[in-house]
């Protein structure tokens, strides 16, 4: 039986989504995306550098079979995020947008007030909105009510590699959500990704965790396996946690007794 990730009107076999930033070269990025077996990748929208000539376009470096998810990275106001989303749609000719409205430069935590406003506007304009937000169940519910196609609570600050900082909140968010929950930001190594999936979330999005690793291609493979392992473990039904031992072998028939 297929266990696809379904967001809005599309289904994905892969529950791992990757970014395109911070790679040491476009070759490494391409190899890492292959190793991760992602089907969707995020890209940022930026002013063309009119002074630079001869540099290739990111679109030429990406595997053309991958779905491009424009993001509004770097936007600090609802208006900028809305404008960026509209430009991203025109550039990519896709209705999907990963919405980010940042509230703080150091932590890159979202400005949820502006995020909600931007979500409402963009949903009305027909976008399929995937908002990046905190591990705050109240905000996630509001985003879902505002029409978001998924919610993307962070595990920890972008690029921090700290893993899931608040497991309990992530579980609560998943329990109450009617749209897919994708942990976005903070994944540092394979076990972080596996843990996220074991908590029951629908997918994991990461950029720095792969791109910033010593061997990005190897880490991409590790993350792919971790997401799969975590998902299998979740669906398999783990044993309960117990304070004391629970012997695995029968108590009778031991020699010398």
């Amino acid at each position, binding site marked *: 039986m297929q266990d696809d990730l379904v967001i809005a009107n599309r289904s994905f076999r892969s529950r791992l989504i990757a*970014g*395109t*930033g*911070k*790679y*040491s*070269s*476009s*070759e490494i*990025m*391409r190899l890492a995306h292959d190793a991760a077996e992602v089907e969707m990748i995020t*890209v*940022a*929208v*930026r*002013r*063309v*550098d*009119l002074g*630079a*000539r001869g*540099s*290739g*376009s*990111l*679109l*030429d*470096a990406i595997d053309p079979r991958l779905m*491009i998810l*424009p993001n509004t*990275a770097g936007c600090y106001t609802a208006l900028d995020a809305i*404008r*960026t989303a*509209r*430009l*991203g*749609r*025109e*550039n*990519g000719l896709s209705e999907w947008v990963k919405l980010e409205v940042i509230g703080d430069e150091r932590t890159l935590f979202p400005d949820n007030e502006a995020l909600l406003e931007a979500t409402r506007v963009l949903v009305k304009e027909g976008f399929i909105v995937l908002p990046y937000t905190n591990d705050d169940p109240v905000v996630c519910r509001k985003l879902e009510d505002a029409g978001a196609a998924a919610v993307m609570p962070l595990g920890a600050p972008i690029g921090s590699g700290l893993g899931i900082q608040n497991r309990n909140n992530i579980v609560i968010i998943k329990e109450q959500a009617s749209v897919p929950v994708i942990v976005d930001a903070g994944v540092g190594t394979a076990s972080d990704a596996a843990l996220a999936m074991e908590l029951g979330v629908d997918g994991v999005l990461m950029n720095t965790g792969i791109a910033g690793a010593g061997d990005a291609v190897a880490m991409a493979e590790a993350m792919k396996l971790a997401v799969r392992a975590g998902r299998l473990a979740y669906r398999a039904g783990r044993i309960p946690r117990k304070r004391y031992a629970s012997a695995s072998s029968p108590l009778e028939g031991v020699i010398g007794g």
Partner: protein
Amino acid sequence: MKIRLNGEPHELAHPLTVTALLTELDLDPRRVAVERNLTVVRRSDYEATVIEEGDEIEVVNFVGGGARYRSLPKS
């Protein structure tokens, strides 16, 4: 004729279409998106949209963030 292009003042000899501007900037229209006075210009309207004095134009493309990308070498 003065406009603002990507946040900087820019001089144009005369009004021209978005298509013509992109050509002048040596940009592939399929690789960029254009905003004129806070409104996205549809690609299908590039030929018909004329840039005028005082316009604020933003020309953007997709990037990975960080290093600029070179196309993969042809194999």
